[in-house]
């Protein structure tokens, strides 16, 4: 019984990982790729590690805190790394997709620069 649940979690996680990788090939822009990498693949790895935790808890009677720590760590750090990559790409001048219409960070930076010049 527990093996069916574990294999369900495993296959779900693996499919989400494949979804993230296909997105990183197919999407047109660096920023959209960052979006795909930090959401789909994080969900995939969380599903896989939840499966590992459940397997060792119910089939082997071992409660491993390190696996839970891994889940929490990946869950916390993946959005931060995505934010850092997107910010550095923006400051480095990586071009947007040509169908992009909205750029909030540029407007904010110009407003901030104007305030700094006036003061």
């Amino acid at each position, binding site marked *: 019984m527990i093996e069916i649940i574990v294999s369900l979690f495993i296959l779900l996680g693996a499919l989400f990982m*494949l979804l993230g990788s296909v997105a990183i090939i197919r999407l047109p822009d660096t920023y959209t790729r960052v979006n795909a990498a930090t959401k789909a693949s994080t969900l995939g790895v969380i599903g896989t590690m939840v499966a590992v935790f459940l397997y060792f808890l119910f089939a082997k009677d071992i409660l491993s805190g390190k696996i839970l720590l891994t889940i929490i760590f990946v869950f916390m750090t993946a959005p931060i790394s995505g934010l850092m990559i997107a910010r550095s790409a923006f400051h480095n001048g990586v071009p947007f997709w040509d169908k992009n219409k909205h750029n909030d960070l540029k407007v904010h930076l110009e407003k901030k620069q104007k305030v700094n010049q006036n003061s």
Partner: protein
Amino acid sequence: MFEAALIVALIIMSVSVFLCFIRVVIGPSVSDRVVALDLIGIHLIGIVGMLMILHESLYYVEVVLVLGILAFIGTIALSKFIEGGVVIDRDHR
């Protein structure tokens, strides 16, 4: 049946790592390559998790933790490097 599911999941994850590797090779800018390398690190965590169930041992838990920490630190360091700044700074632009 259970091992078949594990092996299918391992094959799917290997294909995902290969797709990320294609993006590492053809990526037009450095940021694309950094994103793809970060994704390879995250997928390696899943692969080692599968190996933990296949070998029925808990000795790979430290490997998983260190892989997660290394992927995070490497991504932060590379993104700060291509931005052209120091790794730990006080005034963010």
